[in-house]
């Protein structure tokens, strides 16, 4: 059962009175929330769930694990807490709210509750918005670009991204400037 369907049914069962966050709590069982002890410092648990889902749509699990398994959400929370400026943080959090706005406008539900295809449609809209308004005159960049950059950096610098998806070789031992690509088969991270 996909999440959106599950929640709709639940809303029916309960007369639709449950708030979304309560539902998220109840739905913990088939939820995507990370199983370890991570407590986000900047993101709320809803925002953390949204960031986790967005990152997984940007770099999904395929024949190798994706952004969620690489805990990109934790990296993003860490960067927002200790690395980004207050203005960037605010802009990013507004962007998260905007994701749900788009999602609710089209599907009458929050992003995390949508099916995969609908999530991709929302992300495509976000990508188009970023292209239409690249914010060239600002120190900030469009939310989609920020989210994507976070995901790319967070994923490919993780152990999963660097050594399962790509190839990592920290002490190669020698140099060969011209080998068949098929001997490696993947980019060096």
């Amino acid at each position, binding site marked *: 059962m996909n999440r959106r369907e599950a929640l709709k049914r639940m809303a029916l069962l309960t007369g639709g009175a449950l708030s979304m966050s309560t539902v998220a709590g109840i739905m913990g069982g088939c939820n995507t929330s990370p199983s370890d002890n991570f407590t986000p410092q900047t993101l709320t648990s809803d925002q953390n769930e949204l960031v986790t889902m967005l990152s997984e*749509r*940007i*770099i*999904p699990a*395929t024949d190798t694990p*994706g952004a969620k398994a690489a805990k990109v959400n934790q*990296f993003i929370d860490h*960067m927002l807490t*200790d*690395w980004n400026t207050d203005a960037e943080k605010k802009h990013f959090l507004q962007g998260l709210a905007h994701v749900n706005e788009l999602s609710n406008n089209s599907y009458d539900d929050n992003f995390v509750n949508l099916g995969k295809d609908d999530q*991709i449609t929302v*992300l495509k809209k976000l*990508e188009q918005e970023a292209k239409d308004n690249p914010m060239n005159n600002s120190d900030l960049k469009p939310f989609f670009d920020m989210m*994507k*950059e976070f995901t*790319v*950096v*967070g994923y*490919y*610098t*993780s*152990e999963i*991204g*660097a050594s399962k*998806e*790509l190839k*990592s*070789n*920290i*002490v*190669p*031992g*020698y*140099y*060969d*400037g*011209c*080998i*068949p*690509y*098929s*001997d*490696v088969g*993947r*980019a*060096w*991270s």
Partner: protein
Amino acid sequence: MKKKNYYVSNPPEEYDAIVVGSGISGGWAAKELTEKGLKTLVLERGRNVEHGKDYTTEHEPNWDAKFRGQGNRKLFEEEYPMQLRSNVINEFNYHFFVNDKTYPYQTDEEDPFLWVRGYQVGGRSLTWGRQTYRWSDLDFEANTKEGIGVDWPIRYKDIESWYDYVEEHAGISGQAEGLPQLPDGKFLPPMDMNCVEKDVKKKIESSFEYRHMTIGRCAVLTQPHKGRGPCHYCGPCSRGCSVGAYFSSQSSTLPAARKTGNLTLRPNSIVHSVIYDKDTNRAKGVRVIDRLTKETKEFYGKVVFMCASTLGSTQILLNSKSDAFPNGIANSSGVLGHYLMDHHFRVGASGIFEGYEDRYYYGNRPNGIYIPRFRNINEATRQKDFLRGYGFQGGASRPSWGRGRNMDGFGEEFKKKLRDPGPWRFGITAFGEILPNKDNHAKLSADKKDEWGIPQLEIHAHIRENEKKMRKDMAKTAVEMIEAAGGKKVQPYESEYLMGEGIHEMGTARMGRDPKTSVLNKHNQAHDVPNLFVTDGSCMASTACQNPSITYMALTARAADYAVNELKKGNI
């Protein structure tokens, strides 16, 4: 009390030789002086860095780093702003660069001078670019032929055997090419070019007369050498290398000095000034402020070697005031602090190379290719617009996941695309000579001091007409060579260059024949004070376009040899 008593509680210690600084030049001075039997004190203003043990980030994967290699942005912006602007610090090496907040200096807000420093045992030898190119007489004769600055008091023949000597100890890998403008050295086997570079080399050399491309000559071992291990191609040298594959004071010169039993190395010792004895006209020693306790202490020596980096040595000399030298010791000429130079860069081009999609490389080569100077090297290459010349450094590679930041799309296709490396790209950046100009200078601040009470340096320097015209030519020749080599979508680039960011600052205590216009003679000996030697980059009378460190090494070894002979003869 008129004069501060600098040695109330600490009796002076006496040595044969005092070396100020433990970087590339100081390490060489230490090695040469101790091996020749002098009890030598090396004073280093920063903390100790022990070979191996203190390379705390060596081989650390991104995923173990707090900011995944992105660096602590807030810390860098607040406390390392100048080091950050120079684009050399990162999460894994910033502990080898200075905190600008702790060690401030004054410069122009518009067009600042970027002073990149490494205050620790080993200095910047831990983080240097390791490129090593000899000078030729084209460089040593340029000033006098063109009537620029002062004539170098030495020629290639004076330094040639010293290049041999330091190269044999340091271990330089490279390819002999037989070029008059870039003399060959004592090379270990060269590193390999990759497939695209090999092809580009052929095409550049067949398309342009006088243009050559060679693998970078670098102070990185390609085979075991004097107890040090060869390169294992991990890549990021500036984190430190515990097998000692690249030359640093820690891997090469300090161990040799230590072996003699004549070395005393004292970290956390900020040299305040050189003590001048007017009765003997000698440098008697140095005044030191302990970095941690702020206690002052004097050290005496028969000979003093200043190796504290160009601006570091200059600052100390300027601050060494006496009745005989009210403007700084050995500064009767008044040129101390002037004629500050660097190499200008941030101009170049790159292009895509097709047809090699099935080729890749193994290992992270800490070296690139070099295109030696080809402008103004003879009548045929004479330029109307500018004097001197430039060389190119660069290489070919395939971009990895980093390009994903700017690549369209997301999802499965996006991930799949990033699994393969991107297209081969070959790019080059020019490094050009900057002419000496008196207005490019450093002086002591009239009112600003550091935490240790030492006047801060105030630095003013920028590039002028000759460099600006050269930059146009750099962009042009970069594009034409990459196009001739078969590059596609060739893009030139030129971004703002600030003086200092070449990290090749030179010239503020220049050598020359005339004591009226230079600080040092042909032996790096102060014209004014015979037992005072300055052998770091401040001695340079011009910059050439080659990376300078190997020349500092050779000049230092040569000066140490001279100093010891003079001591033995009783001349100093």
